[in-house]
């Protein structure tokens, strides 16, 4: 088995996906299909959240069932200032990142003292605490949420009200986040994170204070998810606590697992397939949840390593023929 040849083919798959996403807006505008434009924008925005989850889940082995909390915080960072008539995008983004880093450091400081199923439960508990906090905030619409009347302003530099601008901004941010993650996982820090995932006690006895590295990783991931929330709030003109619900976190996990954990670009494919399939199946039959669930189970059971693993397996088979 020569590993080099099949890898080029999976690059082909991701390259095609990239070109497709890059070329889609003009085509969709020309064909007057705003619905699909919206769908792809959602794919890009949620890909950022899924990729940030991949950083802690796939690379760091920290299975968080509370990741949607960061996305919600990011969206409220747009909604609440806007509610007071403050539309500066720089400020929104700054608040989103600061709030998420703070939330990650405070909750992470506690969750990261636990492992395995306890970690999952505590991340879930903190996210639900945040959810109920926002449900109880009458001023900000409680469980009805807040409407965002106007998208963030970037001093005339970017007009987010233009769907194409928001689309390419989301794509740029996604590319930036993935580029950053790529540097990160090949750096000293990234190697430590991967080492911890595979053998934490050994990393400790090699002299790494694993808790600190995990906490830093958790905060970086939270900040990225917050940026995705900033974009999502702008995109939907709306935020409600429902965006932070644990089922949303579960969906993010599914997007990552569906694509393939611990593979840089795989969650983008996972998110795209997840959202497209949800759309197609729900148009096709009212029992789509059943079909969708079945499909997801099949991918996890038969395609270890998600869609990425599946594609690799097919490539290997073709290659050995």
């Amino acid at each position, binding site marked *: 088995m020569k590993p080099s040849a099949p890898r080029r083919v999976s690059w082909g798959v991701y390259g095609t996906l990239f070109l497709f996403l890059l070329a889609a807006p003009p085509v969709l505008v020309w064909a007057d299909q705003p619905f699909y434009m919206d769908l792809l924008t959602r794919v890009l925005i949620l890909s950022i959240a899924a990729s940030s989850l991949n950083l802690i889940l796939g690379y760091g082995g920290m299975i968080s069932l509370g990741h949607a909390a960061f996305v919600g915080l990011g969206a409220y960072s747009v909604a609440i200032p806007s509610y007071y008539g403050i539309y500066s995008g720089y400020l929104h983004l700054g608040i989103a990142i600061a709030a998420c880093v703070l939330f990650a450091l405070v909750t992470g400081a506690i969750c990261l003292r636990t492992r395995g199923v306890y970690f999952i439960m505590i991340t879930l508990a903190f996210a639900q605490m945040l959810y109920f906090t926002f449900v109880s905030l009458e001023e900000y619409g409680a469980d009805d949420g807040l409407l965002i009347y106007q998208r963030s302003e970037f001093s005339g530099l970017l007009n987010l009200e233009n769907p194409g601008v928001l689309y390419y901004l989301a794509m740029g941010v996604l590319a930036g986040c993935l580029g950053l993650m790529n*540097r990160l996982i090949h750096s000293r820090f990234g190697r430590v994170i991967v080492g911890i995932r595979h*053998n934490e006690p*050994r*990393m400790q*006895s*090699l002299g790494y204070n694993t808790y600190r590295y995990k906490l830093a990783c958790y905060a970086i991931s939270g900040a990225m998810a917050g940026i995705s929330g900033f974009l999502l709030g702008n995109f939907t003109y709306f935020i409600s606590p429902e965006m932070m619900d644990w089922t949303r976190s579960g969906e993010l996990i599914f997007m990552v697992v569906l694509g393939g954990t611990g593979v840089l670009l795989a969650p983008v494919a996972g998110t795209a397939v997840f959202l497209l399939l949800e759309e197609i199946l729900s148009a096709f039959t009212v029992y789509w949840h059943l079909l969708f669930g079945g499909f997801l189970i099949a991918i996890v059971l038969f395609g270890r390593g998600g869609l990425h693993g599946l594609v690799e397996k097919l490539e290997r088979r073709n290659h050995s023929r």
Partner: protein
Amino acid sequence: MSLAIRNLNKSFGGIMASSDVNLDIEENETHAIVGPNGSGKTTLIAQLSGIIVPDSGTIHFNGVDITRAPSHRHAHIGLARSFQITSVIMPMTLVENVMMAAQSVSGHSFRFWRPISLERDLRERAMQYLEDVGLKDVSGSEARAVSHGQRRQLEIAMALALNPRLLLLDEPMAGMGKRESGRIVELLAGLKGKMTMVLVEHDMDAVFALADTASVLVDGSIIATGPAAEVRANPEVQRAYLGDLHA
């Protein structure tokens, strides 16, 4: 004094794994710890390396109290160990495993941007340690793909890459072939006198070829300690331990 252990006690339920252990080990001395299975050798090493906290007693390393220091601190004050039960990072290559150790003691690792592949000196140092333990040819293989014996050799390379002043080796040769263990004995003989070594080992020939001093553990207690040759000749030791082994 490199290592000073005072009145160390550790029990698991009713089992006394360490029972009033007192031990002094001089700088650059090689000290062997022998004893029958279950006598508390690994538990002692685990307490010295911060993985198990003793119930009572103290451990000083170069005058610093490390009794309750977390295990990640040890590597940075010059104390490294190898594990009796191999513990390496399986999906990483051998050279990556050793680099992980070398990286730990060459500055902090909150460096997010520069690719590790550009850190030539880390790789070169790692390769040197792999060559020393006889793994140069398989340096690019993943740890899960090599033999059990080779992973034992990797354990030692990782401990050495921490550049320790005190090296704790828990049955380093167990599970190696004759040729490999010969090579490791030779390597350790070469390191002798350059760092303090605590060696837990069942192979008596290896022990007495390497050790300056030795202690015998039985049921968590040290029943004899002193120069290796004296300990070996001690009739009580012969009866309690050596006799026990050949019974």
